[in-house]
């Protein structure tokens, strides 16, 4: 079972990677890259790195790839084909459909909220999850690289904003 899952995820990742490199339209490349990121997150879960799988989904598939999509749209390299939606009634229908999809997807989660959760037995510590272990190491042994990483992120933000600015009209000096 685990072998089958590994081969399925591996083939999906590899095929998506090949599509990323060899397809012509940049929009298709980005979409297959998102698929590759998601299947890589699945491989991380198989390796018992659940925290990293979620971080991969949120950061890579959720932020970095969306940034790529923004840039592709901004540079007009590719227009997203939109269906012709005229009138307010069509927009209401789309919104209702999306809300219904969200409820259907999130419904099983909400069910767990309303069921009674077992009280923790006093004196018995729960086993450490992957997040606990990473947090324990990250905030003690690796605290300095963690702080430097946040400074690096600040530098990247400032750099991206400066580089993305529109050039002002240059005035001749002296």
């Amino acid at each position, binding site marked *: 079972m*685990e*072998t089958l899952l*590994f081969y399925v995820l*591996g083939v999906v*990742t*590899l095929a998506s*990677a*090949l599509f*990323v*490199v060899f397809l012509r339209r*940049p929009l298709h*490349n*980005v979409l297959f*890259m998102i698929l*590759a*990121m998601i299947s*890589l997150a699945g*491989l*991380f879960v*198989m*390796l*018992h*790195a659940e*925290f*990293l799988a979620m*971080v*991969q989904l949120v*950061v*890579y598939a959720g*932020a*970095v790839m969306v*940034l*790529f999509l923004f*840039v*592709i749209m*901004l*540079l007009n*390299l590719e227009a997203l084909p939109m269906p012709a939606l005229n009138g307010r009634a069509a927009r209401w229908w789309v919104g209702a459909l999306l809300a219904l999809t969200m409820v259907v997807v999130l419904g099983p989660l909400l069910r767990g909220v309303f069921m009674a959760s077992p009280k923790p037995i006093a004196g018995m510590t729960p086993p450490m999850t*992957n997040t606990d*272990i*990473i947090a324990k*190491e*990250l905030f003690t042994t*690796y605290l300095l*690289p963690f702080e430097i*990483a946040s400074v*690096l*992120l600040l*530098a*990247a*933000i400032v*750099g*991206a*904003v*400066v*580089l*993305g600015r*529109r*050039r002002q009209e240059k005035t001749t000096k002296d």
Partner: protein
Amino acid sequence: MVTLHHYLFLSALLFGVGIVGVMVRRNLIVILMSLELMLNAVNLTFVAFSRYLGSIEGQIFVLFIMVVAASEVAVGLAIAVAIYRQKGTVDVNEINLMKW
């Protein structure tokens, strides 16, 4: 039975595909995406080693790789936008002002 070698082989293949993408493609955005693919292959290597050698340090390093990769993508895409505004294209063969 999935051993360490399976994961290493897969990540080596992913890395190779990323290298081919960086070398072959001329669109700057696709080159940046292939670079991200290479970084993800290295992430997979680190996590596989972290699992099979029993140490969490591999996963901590993966966190830092993700931080660096995300900031590099942000800056790289800002450069791509600036190049597009200057030259009207993101074809890397056109960006040859510094060529001898």
